[in-house]
């Protein structure tokens, strides 16, 4: 926590001075912001460049990897989470944890159905045949 931050608030807020060290405010240098911006643009260039070649199934991993790096740059520096309070970090990052739960279980079901068919040898080709027309109207019956 830089002294500058302290002084920033000392004027506004005397009696709660002790709590100021909870890092709720951090003034980063313009130079740092500029560096992050350049890094982000560079990574954008990389991800586009890489996409010109086909690495098969690795494509997704590579692209998501680069995107995650970019995302963490934005979160850590632009969004100041690096200097934010522990609870804010916890709250925000936990959303990714629960997101991963949604992904893992939903996709696990989808991805394991193929194995499932091997297990039960249930054909999985779609049913042909007529359908009931969906009702477009949202009005009275």
């Amino acid at each position, binding site marked *: 926590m830089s002294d500058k931050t302290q002084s920033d608030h000392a004027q506004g807020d005397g009696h709660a001075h002790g709590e100021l060290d909870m890092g709720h405010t951090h003034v980063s240098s313009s130079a740092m912001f500029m560096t992050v911006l350049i890094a982000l643009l560079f990574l954008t260039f990389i991800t586009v460049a890489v996409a010109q070649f086909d690495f098969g199934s690795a494509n997704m991993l590579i692209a998501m990897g680069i995107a995650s790096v970019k995302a963490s740059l934005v979160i850590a520096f632009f969004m100041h989470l690096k200097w934010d309070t522990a609870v804010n970090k916890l709250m925000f990052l936990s959303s990714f944890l629960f997101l991963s739960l949604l992904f893992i279980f939903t996709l696990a079901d989808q991805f394991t159905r193929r194995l499932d068919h091997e297990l039960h040898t*249930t*054909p999985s*080709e779609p*049913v042909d*045949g*007529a*359908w009931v027309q969906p009702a477009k109207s949202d009005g009275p019956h």
Partner: protein
Amino acid sequence: MINLIQDPPQDPPKDATPWDGVPAPDIDAWGQLPVQAGNFDHVDGLFYFTYAVCIVFFVIITGVLLYSCVAHRRKTWDQKPLSNVTHNTPLEVVWTVIPLIIVMIMFAWGFKGSLDMTTVPQAAKQNTYKATAKQWNWTFTYPNGTRGYNEVYIEIGKPVQFMLESTDVLHAFYVPSMRVKRDIVPGRYQSVWFEPTKLGTYHLFCAEYCGDDHSRMYAKVHVVDEATMEKEPWNIVPEADAPVAERIAYGKELAGQLCASCHKISPTQGMDNGPSWVGMFTKVDGKLVGRQREVIEGGETKTITTDDAYITESIRKPTQKIVAEEPYRGRNMSNFETLDDARIACLIDYMKSLADN
């Protein structure tokens, strides 16, 4: 087969229930489940085991609770508690670990059972039926390709697999006496298997909510012996040369099974989701005249006269000519491509017979 023939036509529609003539299944000794008519005994086993465990825990909990409510009740308004104990580690460990062990047993038992129920054995694969669910009836295709509607005959002691397909929304294939249930997901096949072990007729319910007539989407499961199977009772359709009364009776029966959930198939029977059959044909000095209809075909509206060809087409390709008349306009009937000529002929005869009254 459903015996609508005996129902006098003036009966209100609801009196003709799909489950007419199906006996209530016997209930087992413990009074909770229908008597097992299939091979999945482990369901009953685990059910009653869990049930017993639950009762034991329930008695303990409520026993202690009610005892202390009486024994330790507050007699003076400022009475202090007998003890101020706030925790007891051994006790807490015990009542964490013991339930954990019990539920793990239940899990293993249950998962093993479910594998058994979802893994179809060879014998059942050789005896595969197809059950097609649509709002709100069942079509069963037998291994030999013949079809039956809203009831199915299976042979005792012979494992059977049902390939389940839905042509509209979610349904579920549920035979309580066999302990089998499986949702039918449109767009892909599901399958269930079981081995009928007890002669008789059983309920087949649709257990996944599927719209207006969900509660009447019902079929009978007849478990019969080999001799009866060979007669193919589901496939007896009066031929063209059969006496017309018999054909009309069969047509009415079939209409009750397949059509009444949307059409008025007689002045007193059927829903009004689709055009009524009443007045489809009228008698003009002894000759049958078909009703004039406004229909939309490929965008443009035209007028046609109801005749056998039009009816057959509307049954097999309902989307070809859509009735323009409100409120039926824009409502589409699910098709019955698979309905064979003999059955359609009987239906048409029945429709024509409506002109008499």
